[in-house]
């Protein structure tokens, strides 16, 4: 009996003494949750590595008041159940002051409550489902625009930049595409177009033949064809078959189409002059980003759209931690408060970042590109105004 009490006391003693040991913080840790293995490994590793570039820059300047910053990877393999265990792990490590990610809407949704329960700030760089910031969790922020702002920004772009008066919208029957198409139509009507000027119909993703519905578009004779499909191969078929049918309208594709091989290459010239929107900027067109792109490319190779928001998010997080340290309150609550107060943060995204009370990017940001030759040329960014 005595033996058991002794062992019990020993365990209790250990349990109490460890947080004490960890309290004198020598390093600052930040987590990065995402699907670093599996099908989405490539974009997620780009996110991780871009955040690492930011950390390396801070560490090169001496970290935060002499404390080195450590970057912890939490791999959820796109599985909500694993995302939950990553969240518990990050929550339990008191030296972690903030988390980048999760970058996907479903893993973010699964972990909202857990991170909220331990006051750990989340800055996602890609999760765009509008719901995520509508549930009252004050610890969740995003540097990417949510889905529903793209619709309004696209409506602005279609009427202002493309000067269209008659618009055909074809959308795939999936939640993401329906929301984009719905919000765009709502926006177009707000901008003065009527039902007579807008044609909407649907397509089936992966169907490979859109000619019947495109024949209908041809009869409608629009100025712009907004083709809201998820994947680049579908968009390539869309633009190719539209041109083959002799549709003269400007082809406007979604962010899925911003893929040189699977859209421009697969369309074999039919995509020339087509427009696409994208949630991420072309960092090469933004002068402030040149330092980051050079560092990333020399170390990790080529860059797609997922990296830059992650670099921005990590800098926002580290700035907030730095301010907390300066105020002498190096804890999660203070970091959270500082992130929420982020205003006109001038980074590499081409516009100043401000979070609105829900944690969303104020005004959102939708970037527009045009296919020229084998490249996407940056045209403009719309921020809801």
């Amino acid at each position, binding site marked *: 009996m005595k033996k058991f009490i002794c062992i019990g006391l020993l365990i209790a003693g250990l349990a109490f003494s460890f947080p004490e040991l960890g309290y004198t913080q020598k390093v600052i840790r930040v987590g990065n949750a995402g699907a670093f293995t599996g099908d989405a490994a490539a974009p997620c590793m780009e996110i991780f590595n871009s955040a690492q570039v930011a950390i390396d820059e801070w560490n090169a300047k001496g970290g935060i008041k002499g404390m080195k910053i450590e970057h912890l990877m939490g791999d959820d393999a796109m599985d909500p159940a694993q995302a939950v265990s990553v969240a518990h792990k990050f929550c339990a490590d008191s030296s972690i002051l903030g988390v980048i990610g999760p970058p996907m809407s479903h893993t973010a949704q699964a972990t909202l409550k857990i991170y909220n329960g331990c006051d750990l700030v989340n800055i996602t760089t890609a999760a765009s489902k509008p719901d995520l910031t509508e549930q009252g969790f004050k610890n969740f922020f995003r540097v990417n625009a949510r889905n529903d702002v793209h619709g309004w920004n696209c409506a602005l772009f279609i009427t202002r930049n493309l000067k269209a008066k008659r618009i055909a919208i074809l959308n795939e029957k999936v939640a993401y595409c329906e929301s984009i198409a719905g919000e765009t139509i709502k926006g177009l009507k707000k901008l003065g177009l009527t039902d007579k000027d807008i044609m909407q119909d649907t397509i089936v993703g992966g169907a*490979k033949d859109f000619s*019947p519905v495109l024949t*209908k578009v041809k009869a409608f004779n629009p100025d712009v064809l907004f083709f809201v499909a998820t994947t680049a191969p579908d968009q390539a078929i869309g633009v190719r078959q539209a041109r083959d049918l002799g549709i003269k309208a400007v082809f406007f594709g979604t962010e899925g189409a911003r893929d040189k091989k699977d859209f421009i290459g*697969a369309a074999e010239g039919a995509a020339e002059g087509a427009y696409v929107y994208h949630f991420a900027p072309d960092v090469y067109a933004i002068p402030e980003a040149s330092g980051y792109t050079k560092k990333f490319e020399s170390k990790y190779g080529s860059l797609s759209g997922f990296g830059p928001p992650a670099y921005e998010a990590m800098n926002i997080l580290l700035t907030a931690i730095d301010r907390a340290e300066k105020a002498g309150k190096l804890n999660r609550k203070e970091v959270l408060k500082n992130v929420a107060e982020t205003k006109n943060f001038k980074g590499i995204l081409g516009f100043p970042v401000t979070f609105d009370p829900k944690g969303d990017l104020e005004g959102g940001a939708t970037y527009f590109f045009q296919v020229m030759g084998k490249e996407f040329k940056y045209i403009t960014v719309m921020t809801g105004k």
Partner: protein
Amino acid sequence: MIHGIRTFLYPACSGNDMDFYLQQLPQQLVNGLTLGGVYALIAIGYTMVYGILSMLNFAHGEIYMIGGFVGWWVLHLLIGESGPVLHVSLVISLMLIIAMGMTGLLGIAVERFAYRPLRKAPRMNLLLSALGVSIFLQNLVLHHQGAKARFFLVSSLIPESLRLFQVGEVVFSFMRILVIVVAFLLMTGLTFMIKRTKVGKAMRATAQDIEAASFMGIDVDRMIVFVFLIGSALGGAAGTLVGLLFTQVDYYVGFQAGLKGFTAAVLGGIGNIYGAMFGGILLGLLESIATTFFPATYKDVVAFVVLILVLIFRPWGLMGEKVPEKV
């Protein structure tokens, strides 16, 4: 009321809507005819196997998909850095021949390993085996080729002046004509073979009564192998033709195509080869014309409503024969 229906049909053009519909029709006929030709080629494979073994070869859609991959692979090999290394007609012929050869052999292999051991088993076991083969083939391709679509770079194959041409408002493309012509040629060849050759006669006999045929000295096993060879080769040809026409193939195209081919076969009367041809063309036309008048998502609804109506009033299909139950 009428206005209500029109709004449902087409909210954007309730004004001069008749014009709007009519002007699409010629083009939709072309669209439907090409799609229908493809469906017909797939349906033949289903119907031939059903005619002889009374089983639904659900792996047929996958064979079609693999035909597309083989066609892509041949095209990929024959297109050098600066365009095709051989003449276009040769490239397309080689694509078709190699795809048909490989899928034909695959069909024989499937029959040998997945169906023949179950020949005497209840039909349900064969059906399950077919589903198993379908899942196996799909995942095999997914594993080896990945989920990414393969692109048929056809614009480099066909000179721009030949690729598209217009008759009035209707746009034809070289590939559409090619699909219609090749499908027609293959179907004519098949008809000739079944009607005029000795093998065809033996095939018909086997389909009519497998036991009696074997009593008459017909090698029934060889006939079944032959049916799988021909049916699968036609499926493979369809895969390559669709690749050329719609320019993409991925591991998942077989599912949808298989379903459509099966529907076409039932529509025409399963077991009847002419029924399958007719059913395929009809299904393609129904889909493209339904798209004209209804939101495009309804095209399958229309196609299947027609199928159900046909099955209610003519359960043996449009061209199938009413076979009296054997007692």
